[in-house]
């Protein structure tokens, strides 16, 4: 794999996805050692720029960079000059002047990581851009699925909820279809329009139409911040028609994997018994997140020679 940035999974070839997942498996080992750190990115600087809220993704990237010995600094909308009216481009120019090696960016505007990747020499990792993509999340989801299913080829993954406004769903759809999985999506018509089928997925309108076929059920968060009036009547009604409860899980395959990218609205997308139940792999997703992000930083950060011969032979 030879690329500077990871902006999305659309168009990323299968070999690259396999290389990222295989590399991530090796990195899991680092988090289980006495000293959870390797010197690989010593002297490199990784900046996290989070213009939208995040707990998991930000902590996960930060920890991944630290476990590779990079120096990290964080930057968030609430604590930054953005509040004073600075544009993203000006913010980036200022960060650039501090000579970073990689920037991890989350922004509400789709395409903002792409703009930075074009304009600057450092690596850009998209940590979520509007409703477009969230590639590292999809990669950690695919790693979790592959751990349990052995392969993604031919497996059926059902994505349920507000698919249209979900960058997690979009990245998963690109990645999973590249890997040969079958993707079913289900949600209310306002959140799961028939046009989604152009992405190579099968569109259903009831959770009950996908449950029995699925090897994996991925529940999406209702993103109250992106909801517009008229998209659904009430949270209770949504939960009744699209929420995952024990009764629905019982109708699925006994070994079905229940996933959620977090944060969970308990009682909305799924009941607590399902979130904490035997089929749930939600916390494995979090553990795999650190490994996947270590793999991404390792594979993407290039740079000039640091000197020294190799005696690999």
């Amino acid at each position: 794999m030879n690329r500077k940035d990871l902006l999305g999974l659309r168009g990323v070839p299968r070999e690259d996805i396999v290389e990222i997942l295989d590399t991530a498996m090796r990195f899991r080992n680092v988090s289980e050692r006495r000293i959870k750190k390797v010197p690989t990115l010593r002297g490199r600087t990784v900046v996290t720029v989070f213009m939208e809220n995040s707990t998991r993704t930000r902590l996960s990237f930060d920890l991944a960079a630290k476990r590779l010995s990079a120096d990290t600094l964080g930057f968030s909308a609430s604590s930054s000059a953005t509040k004073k009216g600075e544009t993203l481009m000006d913010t980036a120019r200022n960060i650039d002047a501090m000579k970073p090696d990689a920037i991890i960016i989350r922004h509400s505007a789709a395409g903002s990581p792409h703009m930075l990747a074009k304009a600057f020499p450092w690596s850009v990792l998209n940590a979520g851009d509007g409703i477009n993509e969230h590639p590292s999340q999809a990669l950690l989801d695919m790693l979790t699925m592959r751990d349990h299913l052995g392969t993604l080829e031919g497996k059926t993954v059902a994505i349920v909820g507000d698919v249209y406004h979900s960058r997690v769903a979009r990245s998963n759809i690109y990645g999973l279809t590249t890997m040969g999985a079958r993707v079913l999506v289900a949600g209310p018509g306002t959140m799961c329009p028939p046009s989604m089928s152009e992405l190579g997925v099968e569109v259903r309108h009831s959770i009950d139409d996908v449950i029995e076929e699925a090897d994996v059920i991925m529940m999406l968060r209702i993103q109250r911040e992106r909801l517009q009036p008229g998209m659904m009547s009430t949270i209770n009604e949504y939960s009744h028609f699209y929420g995952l409860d024990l009764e629905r899980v019982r109708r699925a395959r006994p070994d079905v994997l229940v996933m959620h990218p977090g944060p969970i609205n308990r009682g909305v997308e799924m009941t607590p018994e399902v979130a904490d139940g035997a089929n749930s792999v939600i916390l494995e997703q979090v553990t795999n997140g650190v490994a996947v992000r270590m793999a991404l930083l390792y594979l993407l950060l290039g740079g000039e020679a640091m000197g020294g011969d190799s005696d690999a032979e």
Partner: protein
Amino acid sequence: MTRTTGMNGVEVGRTLDRLATEMIEQLGIPTDYSLVGIVTGGRPIAERLADRIEHSTGVRPATGTVDITLYRDDLYTGLEKPVLGETKLPFKVSGQDIVLVDDVLFTGRTVRAALDVINDYGRPRSVKLAVLVDRGHRELPITADFTGRLLMTEKTDKVEVRLSEDEAGDDQVLVIPGERGGQ
């Protein structure tokens, strides 16, 4: 200048026999130490040494592997990243006597990196080094405790160790001449 050629299968086998004998002589009961092969070249040699030690004493020392990729001092050369190998140390590292095993000792940088890996897993009581071939041209103050064969080489030569999977006899060590400077 004298340059020994490589080794054939019989020579590799005898050299490993001798290394195993020296280790039995000097290290005592095999349960007291572990052999750790450096990925990729050192791994099969560690296994073969363990086989021989077991054959002579009836006891097999524990074996493990270290992958040094993440600890290399030349990782960022603008090339594609090497594939990560597996570090597997299936014993308690702290307090353990360890023999690091590699196929070729050259600049010493690989061994330096391997020592760093081991140290991040624990603090061994001691670490010794066993190599099949020492080809010279050290760049660090590192030397082997158990050396199979000394090879006189030019720095630009390549030394290749090819081991068959099942030790069927087609093992060889090749010295491939590199560019000659000012001769």
